[in-house]
């Protein structure tokens, strides 16, 4: 009677303290039936990755509004790979200019959700990623 639950880590890397969006997503995903680990603001990429591994999450959602995404998002992806956890899917949200999205995707971020994203869109992404794995 196996019951697999999808576990998602919602994390805020770097120094940005605006957590309204991250908190909303965490709660909305909980209401959709996911188990969400929320670790608060000011997480280093190293802490995020160790948390993702210990919690054996399927997804890591990074929220960032301070413009440091080009440095910090790929760092998380790289550290996950270095620890043998490249199967964990990384997605991001916040204030991310569209022109940065292709390079972030090339570096391993599976999706970027900008301002105006709905919960529905994120759930669609999670469910289709789950199916593929």
């Amino acid at each position: 009677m196996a019951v697999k639950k999808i576990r998602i880590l919602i994390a805020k890397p770097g120094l940005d303290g605006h957590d309204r969006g991250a908190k909303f997503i965490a709660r909305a995903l909980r209401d959709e039936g996911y188990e969400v680990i929320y670790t608060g603001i000011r997480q280093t990429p190293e802490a995020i990755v160790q948390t993702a591994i210990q919690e054996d999450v399927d997804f890591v959602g990074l929220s960032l509004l301070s413009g440091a995404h080009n440095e910090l998002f790929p760092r998380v992806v790289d550290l996950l790979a270095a620890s043998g956890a490249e199967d964990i899917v990384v997605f991001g949200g916040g204030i991310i200019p569209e022109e940065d999205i292709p390079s972030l995707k090339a570096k391993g971020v599976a999706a970027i959700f900008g301002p105006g994203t709905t919960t529905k869109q994120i759930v669609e992404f999670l469910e289709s990623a789950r199916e593929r794995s």
Partner: protein
Amino acid sequence: MDLVTEVRRGNLRAIARTISLIEDLEPEAEVLVDALYPFTGRSRILGVTGSPGAGKSTLVDRLITLERHRGRKVAVIAVDPSSPFSGGAILGDRLRMQTHATDPGVFIRSMASRGFLGGIAAATGDVIKVLDAAGYQSIFIETIGVGQTEIKIVELSDVVLLVLMPGTGDEIQAMKAGVMEIGDIFIINKKDLPGADKLRTEVEYVLSFKNSVQAAGRGDGDSEGVSNPILMTSAVQDDGIEALQEVIESYATEIESAGRLAEKRRYRLERELLGILNRKVHELMDVHIEVSKQLPEWAERLYRRESRPYSLINEQIRSFLEERKSD
């Protein structure tokens, strides 16, 4: 990856994956737990419970630091309730322990209660074995102290820390049946809040009552039992934590030498075996009788007075046993 070997080597991914298999009730989980079982028994298991907001996570966070100073590897299982509506959960306890996130000697795992029959106790017990076999000498189990989970924690832990805080009616809670029974060490956290001393007095009173009842039950006036320490702390201000750790050490040593620890562990194993047995029987029945599928139909028959409750179930069990006989 050979999970058993990797878990014993302390490979974090392996430990995490094994825990997930257990949580997800995967069939291989049983095999893994049995394979790891011979290597368990070296950890000290500390249950931490109390009402929400009492400061359990912050307290555990400080204790982790002190345990690390003593050179011990520490694991924490933080349990939070699943939403009864969506089945999802927000697991936020580790937020208060995140300074330890990159310490290789600390493993923190958040678990949702997942509301299953036998759910949290079964899964948590097995998860503890994995962490034990992986070499974590101190394992903290943190749960919210309401309802059933709080009793389960006694069945899982060597020592139970009950965390109270002033000004929330914990005084009254403390009197309620059962709550005081489960604690080994009583901690009044946020001690700078008004009402702390009053709470302490009330806890002392209830404990003295409990101890004399126990002594009477043993038929001696002598306290052969180990008395329950009460401590005042302020986790946020790092106040009283070192004293707490000392008390935990000496309490654990005391119950060990008094033979009480072995007694507790045997009792725990009894409860665990019972739990596995119940679960397996239920699974067995469910598979063969398809309880979930048939239940609505049975209820309908009863509702129409076309059946009677015990005859219905006994009939099902009888035909199940018949089938097995003929196999």
